[in-house]
């Protein structure tokens, strides 16, 4: 069990460099990600949308990492469960809902990609795909370019533990280690690759692989946002000092099924899920804020009402927004091809 549970220290957020307002804002963002996720699941079950891939159980680490980065300069290469991360670095719920409903105004892909496939150039959220972990070499390339140009920034890339077995993870890490690049590589270890549990995916520990690439690996409790914040912040400082990459393995649990097309009780028990739900980072962090005297149940009720209004508005907005025109399918194969790709 982590320190927060065994011995509450009321100024832990101050110790890691967060003001009271920032600590609360972090909570607000993870709760927003959770409520958004729950809403989209409902929309799918109600038949309003076709598909949802959930990040429930992973928001605490995602949001903490986002808060530890520089939202004005850093680059983010999220994977498909990172609603918490993209909300932390500036994406709005409306924008996410436009993607969920696959509408023309969706800044991620103009309604082309599945939800959870993020991209937003103004926010430096780098467009991603479905073949997993291809984004790791991209993050390394961005870090290489930043280093070449003398820009003080880091690239931050995430992925699941299942996809850490892909060649691109290893090739990207090795390249980054050789060139000591300013990249933070964070594995969100949620214990499952769809149905395959961690012990059937990995013989050793992901964090230990860092040694083979010549940079530090840090394992962190992903349900403890203050710990994640500290570790990502330290990794960012190392990167900016020219000391190279850091591999972070954030331990967590995927509380939702893999996607809305998955029945998780075919391969894991309700008891196991419930046991892990008790370790959920969000209620624990709420309790920390209350114990620290900067949050209350009344404020929490107000916040929930406020978030509900935001999500209602975004749902309504996304639902009513127009689809892309059928002919727009032909656009943007190449630069300036207003008539689409040549046949």
């Amino acid at each position, binding site marked *: 069990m982590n320190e927060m549970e065994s011995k509450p220290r009321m100024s832990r957020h101050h110790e890691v460099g967060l003001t009271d307002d920032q600590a609360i804002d972090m909570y607000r963002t993870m709760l927003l990600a959770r409520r958004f996720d729950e809403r989209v699941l409902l929309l799918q079950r109600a038949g309003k949308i076709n598909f949802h891939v959930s990040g429930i159980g992973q928001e605490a680490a995602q949001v903490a990492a986002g808060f530890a980065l520089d939202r004005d300069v850093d680059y983010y290469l999220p994977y498909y469960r990172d609603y918490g991360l993209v909300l932390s670095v500036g994406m709005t719920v409306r924008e996410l809902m436009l993607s969920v409903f696959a509408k023309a105004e969706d800044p991620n892909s103009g309604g082309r990609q599945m939800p959870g496939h993020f991209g937003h150039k103004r926010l430096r959220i780098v467009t991603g795909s479905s073949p997993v972990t291809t984004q790791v070499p991209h993050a390394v390339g961005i870090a290489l370019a930043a280093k070449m140009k003398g820009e003080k920034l880091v690239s931050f890339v995430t992925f699941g533990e299942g996809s850490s077995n892909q060649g691109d993870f290893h*090739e990207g890490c090795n390249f980054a280690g050789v060139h000591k690049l300013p990249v933070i590589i964070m594995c969100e270890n949620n214990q499952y690759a769809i149905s395959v549990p961690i012990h059937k995916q990995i013989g050793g520990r992901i964090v230990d692989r860092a040694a083979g690439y010549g940079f530090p690996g840090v394992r962190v409790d992903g349900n403890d946002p203050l710990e994640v914040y500290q570790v990502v912040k330290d990794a960012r400082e190392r990167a900016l000092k020219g000391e190279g990459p850091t591999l972070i393995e954030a331990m967590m649990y995927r509380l939702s099924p893999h996607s809305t097309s998955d029945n998780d009780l075919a391969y894991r028990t309700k008891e196991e899920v419930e046991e892990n739900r008790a370790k959920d980072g969000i209620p624990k962090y709420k309790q920390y804020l209350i114990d620290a005297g900067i949050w209350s149940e009344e404020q929490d009720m107000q916040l929930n009402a406020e978030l509900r209004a935001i999500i209602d508005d975004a749902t309504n907005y996304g639902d009513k927004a127009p689809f892309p025109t059928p002919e727009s399918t032909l656009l943007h194969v190449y630069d300036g091809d207003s008539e689409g790709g040549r046949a």
Partner: protein
Amino acid sequence: MPVMEYIEALRLAMREEMERDENVFVLGEDVGLKGGVFTTTKGLQQQFGEHRVLDTPLSESAIAGVAIGAAMYGMKPIAEMQYSDFMFPAANQIISEAAKIRYRSNNDWSCPVVIRAPIGGGIFGGLYHSQCPESVFFGTPGLKIVAPFTPYDAKGLLKAAVRDPDPVLFFENKKCYTLITGDVPETDYTVEIGKANVLREGDDITVISYSLPLHFALEAAAELQEEEGISAHILDLRTLQPLDKESIVEAVRRTGKVMIVHEDNKTGGIGAEVAAIIAEELLYDLDAPIMRVCGPDVPAMPINPPGEKFFMLNKGKVKDAMRQLALY
């Protein structure tokens, strides 16, 4: 106008582009001090430094993936695959990522990367140092594919590729590197991507090709004209994707008899698509069945000399086929 080798023209193109734009850089295996296994990048690291001419780990997916990341950031990377036979580990990065970045982000992000890879056999390279993989990538919208056959085109197309806002696969022919020499202007010129080039005007037959076999076709055409009075019209596709449909149609209409030549194997090759375009557009203009002269449908060419010679095209094979078509 200086006369130089094909490989020198490639090197000059990279040097000029790196001098012109500080965002252009080269990365790949052995491209630094050694200057590449073929010496294509020789001297570039000495001129531009280790930061702009990067020796990478032996890891093709990272070479492509890192270049793609840097390109999305705003750089203009030229990634070298040592042999095109070794670019398949990078195929996911090229096909799933580079090709789709503009499209999947609805024009928000772009990926102006150049991936250079030597193609072709005839150097006793055996199965894995001789392949022509263009048909693997052809038919992936979002990619541009070019394949020069002269030093002039090598320089002009590579410079155009570097300046192109989209990903370009640049298939240079390794047999051409030092075998082919030609005039190369010292001026800053480019060869437009997406435009085919008429190499020879003629009235009896049309030959459509790209890369090394064009040299065989040109020599054969000169001899056939001289010896037998057969007049061949020759079109260099120059860009394989997107194909210059108008120029193909125009070249075929000129003679009504067409032959497509490439070293890549016949089934599913570029020639199949060119033939389909002709069938769609010009079926009633044809005076003979479309002919394809290509590598055989075997996995790749063997290293033993008779086997390699059997696989490779040459002037004689192309000339015989051209005569056959003319006589049809």
